[in-house]
């Protein structure tokens, strides 16, 4: 529907400007909250829907905590989520839950099975967020696999969040965040591990078709993760 036709129908230019054609409702675009205000600001709204996003960083850089935050946010919004966990390293204390009964679909697999499992889950449709944790896997992953995942994510409107020790997706990622963590210990008395201070730097952001990123967006943000054990 053209804007002129919308104006003709409703008469009010302000309302006419807010009319969205039904055909555009199927464009599963936009962003989903990351669960962290600072990260939302860095990404310009959150993780892009219907696209691949990447989270990379060394050990103890907060990747798992950020994945957990994204899963919690999606579960709280009533969406189905999945965590594909190479090595099955999820901690019982880190089980995300949006409400008492909601939990993600957890798939423990080997490194070789990770992308195949992700492909199956995304193709099922209806999953809002699929987190793929490659853990410390370093083997080469062919571009065709990422291309296939990107196509499936776009078709289903699923946010696919890939976590790896180093950047793996290249130009297949609509958003890429690099993390650097610093351990914080309480030194007043015997040392006590208190948490991680994490610097998140944005390497790539937004859908391909999005306008250029806002220049006022911060290049990096600080995040704090506390240890409660």
């Amino acid at each position, binding site marked *: 529907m053209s804007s002129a036709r919308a104006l003709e129908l409703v008469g009010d230019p302000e309302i006419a400007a807010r009319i969205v054609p039904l055909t555009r409702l199927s464009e599963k675009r936009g962003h989903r*909250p*990351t*669960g*962290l205000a600072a990260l939302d600001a860095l990404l310009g709204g959150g993780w892009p829907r219907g696209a691949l996003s990447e989270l990379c960083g*060394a*050990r*103890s*850089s*907060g*990747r*798992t*905590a*950020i994945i957990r*935050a994204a899963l*919690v946010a999606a579960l*709280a*919004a*009533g969406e*189905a989520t999945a965590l594909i966990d190479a090595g*099955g*390293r*999820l*901690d*019982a*204390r*880190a*089980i995300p839950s*949006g*409400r008492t*009964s909601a*939990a*993600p*679909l*957890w*798939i*423990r697999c*080997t490194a070789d*099975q990770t992308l195949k*499992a992700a492909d*199956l*889950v995304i193709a*099922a*449709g*209806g999953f*809002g967020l699929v987190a793929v944790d490659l*853990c410390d896997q370093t083997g080469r992953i062919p571009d065709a696999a990422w291309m296939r995942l990107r196509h499936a994510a776009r078709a289903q409107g699923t946010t696919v969040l890939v976590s790896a020790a180093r950047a793996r997706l290249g130009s297949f990622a609509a958003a890429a965040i690099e993390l650097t*963590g610093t*351990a914080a*210990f309480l030194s007043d008395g015997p*040392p*006590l*591990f208190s*948490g*991680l201070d994490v610097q998140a730097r944005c390497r790539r952001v937004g859908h391909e078709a999005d306008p250029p990123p806002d220049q006022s967006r911060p290049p990096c943000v600080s*995040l*704090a*993760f*506390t*240890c*409660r054990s």
Partner: protein
Amino acid sequence: MRVFQMNGEARRAGVRDGMTAAQAAAAAPGLQIFRATEADAEAGAAALADVGYAFAPRVERDGDRIYFAVDDLGRLYQHETAIAQAVQAQAARIGFGARVAIASSRGAARVAARAHELAVVPADRGAARAFLASLPIALLTDDDELRAAFRRWGTRTAGAVAALPAQAVALRLGTAGAAVARLARAEDDEPFLPQPPPDALEEAVELEYPIAELDPLSFVLRGLVDRALERLASRSLACAELTLRLSLDPRGLDVRTIPIAAPTREAKPLIELARLDLARRPPGSPVVGLHVIALPARVRATQLDILRPSGPAPNRLAVTLARLAALVGPENVGAPTPVDSWREEAIAVKEYAPSPAAGDAAPPSQTELPLSLRRRRPPEEIEVLMGRDGPTALRGVETTARVLIAAGPYHLSGEWWQDAASGGSWAREYWDVHASDGAVYRLHRDARDGRFYLDGYYD
């Protein structure tokens, strides 16, 4: 090979139940013999009954005929011919060329159906008698002796039989003859004995040779499932559970039930689930017979919310979970759940069920989040160099580093009430160490053997 079913023409030519193929061919030259099994015949009769259940709640099965009441269909169809045509179309949909007749009595309907492809016998007794009058006696009864008796009396049609005095016919031909005479006068009182639909719907096939491979078995299964679903759809039902009964060569049965997430009429997910189950637990011997039992259920209508995500479709999710289970093992797919244990590494997997559609509002964004462990399962045994204040270096398969800061030890023990078979008691000294590779590891020393284990790293 013996004859167990025949059409009227073959019967009139002298073919009888139980004859061998050679005897039947000799009795009726030019007889066409089709190879079929008891299972085929039973499945066919059941499928024919389903045609009736598509129109009525109760149906009487009588060999290759079915009877059901159509009194209540007047609201849906303008006239009785339309009802008969609808029944015929329904039968054609599942592959039967059926003759349909509507009459006010069971016997009149049977005779009319034998005479015409589609017939509506008037409800008025006089008109019904006139309708039947021109029909030959052979259509009234299959009893050869009765037919011969009526022929000897010079009666050729139902009208002629109807004109005979009832008392005289009963006196000479007994109750069977009297029943034929009543039928000819459209006064038959054959009881209508309908049965409710069976609890489960069955389709079966007996194979001519054993099948050991999955692909050919899936091919056979597809035909059976398609037929079962077609029959369920004719009753406005869906399949809620599928049971496969495989007859094995040379003997034995393999019975397996395939749970289905939600009642469905789609063949593809059902076959996929059955296929995955067969691939996961192949039958012990080649299969010579396949029996599919479908549990009928009403299709559940779900009201989706326009403003909230709908989640995965139950049937597609079930297939996906089955595929994932085949890929990574069923114990590795599900929803993670904590275990009532003091062991830090304990975690369990329960059956996954997506959250209900209604969701809370998105939680407010947080500025600080709890840290969790990226855990090694099972904990990896490592070498640790101990100094005066704790670990000073550690070496494992993936980790070799100096320890910059060590926090601990934290003593934990528990489950002393468990016997050795259940894992027994445990006692550990935990350390959080900041290593020179930048990671913060959690490790423990087992108090029983003094060895160090790497639990994982904070992430």
